[in-house]
């Protein structure tokens, strides 16, 4: 039944009492009000729900809340420093990376994870990682532009 789980979200310690197999996505959105992370498929196929778990990109929809106990989660809301956007966010803004924008938070978080792991990744490698993400507006050319802008910053 319900258990109490503590984890860090965007630098703040959070404690929730909930069913251990609830998806991290639901807890972020429903319990913590962090709706920037999106549901797209519920099975890790579209990656709209990508967040950072200990700095690595995971699909929050297939991450059970029990597995994040005492770990650090970062969501799109925790990226900008006040009014200053994270360089990846700024690149998506400048590169017109959003049409409807529903895939944007997931793509941004994936790219942040890639850049965290290696500051100068090869473009092909980055595109392969982003290749897991869906954009149904098929704004891929502008997304590629936004990714390239991110790599230059």
């Amino acid at each position: 039944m319900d258990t109490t789980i503590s984890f860090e979200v965007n630098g703040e310690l959070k404690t929730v009492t909930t069913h251990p197999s609830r998806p991290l996505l639901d807890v972020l959105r429903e319990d913590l009000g962090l709706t920037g992370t999106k549901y797209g498929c519920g099975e890790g196929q579209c990656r709209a729900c990508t967040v950072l778990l200990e700095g690595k990109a995971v699909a929050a929809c297939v991450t059970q809340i029990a597995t994040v106990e005492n770990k650090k989660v970062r969501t799109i809301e925790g990226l900008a420093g006040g009014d200053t956007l994270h360089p990846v966010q700024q690149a998506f803004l400048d590169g017109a990376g959003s049409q409807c924008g529903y895939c944007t938070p997931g793509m941004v978080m994936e790219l942040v994870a890639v850049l965290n792991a290696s500051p100068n990744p090869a473009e092909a490698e980055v595109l392969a990682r982003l290749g897991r993400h869906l954009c149904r507006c098929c704004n891929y050319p502008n997304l590629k532009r936004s990714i390239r802008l991110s790599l230059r910053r």
Partner: protein
Amino acid sequence: MKNKSDCAMTPDHDPAAWSEGVDAVPFDFGLKRRAFVHLLGTGLMVVFSAPALAQRSGGRGGGASAPSISSRLHFGKDGVITVFTGKVEGGQGARAELTQAAAEELRVEVAAVRLVMADTAQVPNDGITAGSRTTPFTVPAVRQGAAAARELLIEIASRQWTTDRDQLKVQAGAVKDPVSGRSFSYRDLAANDIAVRLLSQPVNAGVQVTPVADWKILGKSTPRPNRRDLVTGAHRFPSDLVRPGMLYGKVLRPPAFGATLTGIDLAPARAMKGVVVVADGQFVGVAAPTVFQARAAIEALAETARWEYVSHPSHQELYGHLEKHAQGGVPANPFPDEISRARKVLREDYHVVYVQHAPLEPRAALAEWEKETLTVSLGTQNPFGCRSELARAFHLAEDKVRVVVPDFGGGFGGKHTGEVGVEAARLARAAGRPVSLRWTRREEFTWAYFRPAALIRIEAGLDETGKLSCWHFLNINSGGAGIETPYQVPHQRSRFVRSQGPLREGSYRALAATANHFARECFMDELAAAVAADPLTFRLAHLQEPRLRAVLETAAQRFGWTDRFARKQPGLGVGLACGTEKGSFVAACVEVAIEPKENRIQVRHICEVFECGAILDPDNTRSQVEGCIIMGLGPALQEEMMFENGEIKNASFQRYRVPRFVDVPELDIHLLNRPDLSPVGAGETPIVAVAPAIANAVFHASGVRVRSMPIRLPA
């Protein structure tokens, strides 16, 4: 609330202008129905009589528009300028475009305009956001309203200053008197009683809008006004909305299409803490404090549900089914004499499967009741249509229903209905609290409507000079959009025959124009081959429309068509296609490679030329063209709904593959700007040339004619 007496019909709302309707779900929650209840074990067993299930409803849109200046614009005493529109933003760029349109005519910066979209309590009814109609209809309406406000500003200033109005001009949101240097702004307008009265008058249809040559804002790229909120996650999509005390809804779905609920035990779900269970006719749903709990409750209900099944054709039986159910039978070719006189006759069938729009944000709605007044916030392309749908379902007057549409996560013609709003509202009424209902991906793949499948039959005759002498084109089931051939043929007839498609059907980006262009442009290629002509030359020999010739010739030239077609390389092929729909013109040239091991088609290069009159926003127009092309690659090459025994077999992104980064070929997109022509929409037509150009390229590469979408070669 806007003044309802301001309303009048505009061409934007003429349901007759639509060739295809959407299959509606006929909810009726207004009347008490006789449900016969008895006990089963410890639980409450409800047994239902069989209801009427899905039936078709024709027509769409409906409603009226408000032509007074104040119904379109509001000038605040704080200087804030608000523009109202019934259009929605689902990623296509209407918010930026309509903001541009208002700013241009008001002579203010884009940032000075706040656009309120699709809140039925505030905005005029601009019709459904579909059919590429925002650009040709709503942009002019907004421009006229804004131009009328600008003229009024000049009028009031000239009266106050007794200055000849011809001396006065609006710049940066204010009229300046060149003599005295006095200034009168939109902010002053708000405080002027005469102005307030005049603003409530109808917009003079003859008001002068800014000529293209003088555009300062229109014609230039304008980024999305709310782009910052999209990259920070601050924007609230319909599925992100939250209210105090809100519950999360979930609906019990039948295990198969057409299945009827004959009995269910509600008790186990009712015993769950915090769960509200609703059973009303065939509708069974729950509302719970979390999605997780709602799902658990639905799973408990599903275990006890008893269903009566009906037989349902599978995707393998699709085309036989469509032909068999063609309404009035399959009509004969009306040109038997021309056929018998023809030098050559070709006759082929083309098939197009069912596909889903699969917007990244599934349908979502938040419903709130306040006594007998209902507010529903949801992702839909049809706010006023949804208001009617809700009013009908709950037997309410339309003014008791408010529909609000936050900018949402993609529509593509797939969100013309409000079923998720009706479901949320039914749950909220029972719960006595706001309810948010968010469809899952599986529900979206199964219970949203599909792009209709098509069986297309074409027969054409060629004369001794190698020109088309007669043409008979039948679209069975999928629709009449783009069905008329743009080619010159002395005897021609193109018609759409309705059938009984086995799945719920509705609109999709470009409607049936994609299927009709696929069949026509592939068949034109076959005809060209039959007379050993270059497909480009053959088309041009039958084309008079200068705008279509222009895009085709430009594309062929940019692509280097003539050389590449003649210089055939092993494993590679080139193909082209063109067409016109909704007032715009498109041509595409494509190169494909056939991967020899698995006979897989790889699209390597697409050159597309598009013309939609005067371009309002070059960057967004290009994005729409790119989006159309890449989205179109899905149904062209791989998307197909599989169904059997009334069940969708591939209701997930894992089993229903849509285009990803890796699928994007080299793109050469060229927009032909025609500032001398009225702007029309760009979000649909660019999709229609993609599939036929690929199929034609596959023939060029492999010698195999693939007459079905998705285009696949046997492995």
